[in-house]
């Protein structure tokens, strides 16, 4: 018995050690990004290069520069508006579809669901050419709001898929009782189904938020004006300027744009994990 507990102890130490090493490797790039954002631009090609800036060279000048540009707030606001609109609209349309597809199963609804799932195989970016043409026809090029329907359409399959599982688990008895009480379909959806599925809606919304917050290829293709750019485009634009790159600015802007995401992630960690595992274990 004793030898076994010793072995357990050893294995636990080994586990923590490996995890600690892994964690260091995981966080190094992010720490380096933060440390770079805290040094003056001139020190970027200093020799020898340093992981941490020299103490006396530590500066907030990059942040001051970014925060003094009204453009940054505009880009930030654009990202917030687009992401929030996307998650709200996706939650509304997706949960309604999930409710119908989950609770009124018939041949047509099952087929429809299968069809929606199959489209998930096609990566979103492959459709960028016809989508661009569509955006042109609808006058959605260089329109901030024009991003939203495309984002909603992208996340609908995943949203429906995730919420449908929850909807299916709503006991039929509850619904029967509602019918007997004289409720109609809309009432049941709003009063019964949505509240019961709200954990799933919340967790899928977090994912949708991330998707919309960081989306780059599409926004970069259709948005031109600086005042309509979302954060990823603004950051990439900062970087892309021709023959020199102010990494300090790029990274301080990156850090600022990561703050909301990391906050949401840490605060809603529970929902995150729930959402992820619901998808994988069922699939």
């Amino acid at each position: 018995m004793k030898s076994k507990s010793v072995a357990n102890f050893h294995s636990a130490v080994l586990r923590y050690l490996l995890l600690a090493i892994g964690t260091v490797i995981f966080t190094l790039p992010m720490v380096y990004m933060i440390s770079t954002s805290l040094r003056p631009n001139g020190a970027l090609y200093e020799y020898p290069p340093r992981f941490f800036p020299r103490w006396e060279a530590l500066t907030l000048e990059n942040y001051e520069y970014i925060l003094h540009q009204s453009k940054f707030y505009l880009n930030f606001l654009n990202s917030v508006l687009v992401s929030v609109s996307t998650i709200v609209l996706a939650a509304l349309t997706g949960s309604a579809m999930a409710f119908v597809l989950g609770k009124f199963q018939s041949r047509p609804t099952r087929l429809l669901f299968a069809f929606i799932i199959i489209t998930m195989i096609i990566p979103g970016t492959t459709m960028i050419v016809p989508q661009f043409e569509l955006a042109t026809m609808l006058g959605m090029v260089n329109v901030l709001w024009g991003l939203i329907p495309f984002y909603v359409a992208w996340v609908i399959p995943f949203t429906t898929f995730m919420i449908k599982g929850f909807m299916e688990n709503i006991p039929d008895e509850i619904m029967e009782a509602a019918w007997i009480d004289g409720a109609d379909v809309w009432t049941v959806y709003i009063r019964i189904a949505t509240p019961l599925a709200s954990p799933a809606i919340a967790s899928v919304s977090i994912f949708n938020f991330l998707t919309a917050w960081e989306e780059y290829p599409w926004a970069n293709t259709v948005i031109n004006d600086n005042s309509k750019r979302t954060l990823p485009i603004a950051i990439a634009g900062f970087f892309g300027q021709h023959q020199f790159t102010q990494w300090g600015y790029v990274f301080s802007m990156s850090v600022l744009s990561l703050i909301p995401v990391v906050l949401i992630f840490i605060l809603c960690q529970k929902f995150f994990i729930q959402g992820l595992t619901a998808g994988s274990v069922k699939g």
Partner: protein
Amino acid sequence: MITKSRINRLQIVGLILPGLLVFGMFTIYPIVRLFWMSLCDMSFASMLVQPYTGLTNYREVFGDTTFWTVFANSIVYTLVTVPGQMALGLFIAILLNGIRRFSVTFRVINYLPVVTSWVIASLVFRYVFNTEGLLNYFLWKILGITSGNVRWLDTRWSGLSVAMILGIWKGIGWNMVIFLAALQQVPAELYEAAEMDGCSAWKKFVNITIPAIRGTILFALIELTIGGFNVFTSIKMITGGRPAHQTDTLLTWMYYKAFSTGRFGYAAALSFVMALSLGLLAIVQFRMMRNRDV
């Protein structure tokens, strides 16, 4: 059957209609349109007149040496990053599954790369791997592993490697979470029984763990394969396809053809080929996992 009469068909349709409309218009229509575009001669010059040209675009795609280069790049990227993330993610999940304290902390930290946006992560990697960057200094001057600065971003395979390292780094957290959930559902009795029989840790892993989480492995495999072919932002930010399109992947090359040279028909054909290959691949993966069940 009085109850059923309450189920108003119109209301049901009303509920799914908004979602279906958005989905149909912005996803289904583009897919159909994509196919049609791939059969037409669409370029900057002929945007308004789009003559049907049959399979010409496909012939051009397959006859193009750059296509085969970028196709190979995408396949290598997928073949490396998918097993890479899965193995490391599973490994960390197993480590986490056996500890009690700090489990959540580790999980949160390891998940952070997943929530970091592609644009930002790519720029960080580009900065770290730049020829005069910190990594080269570390490898050369401190560890002495290399005898000079490695030109990470300058050649086809090293440039792709950087993108692949980024892909793995960014994907481990996701795999970790879903595998951890799967591991937690494996009945403990199975392991206890195996222990009685004196099975080694490796044997337990192969004979109990793997079969028990097969569903999750399949799920991850399909999701990640799609993700692997979807690689775009990291390539665009890290190498931009340089040198001479050698590090482009299917999507960055498609994008270049469409939005830099205006060959929309070519791009559509390329996209369609890609969607078809992915569909086939998903079926094959599905079959493979099911066959082993038998």
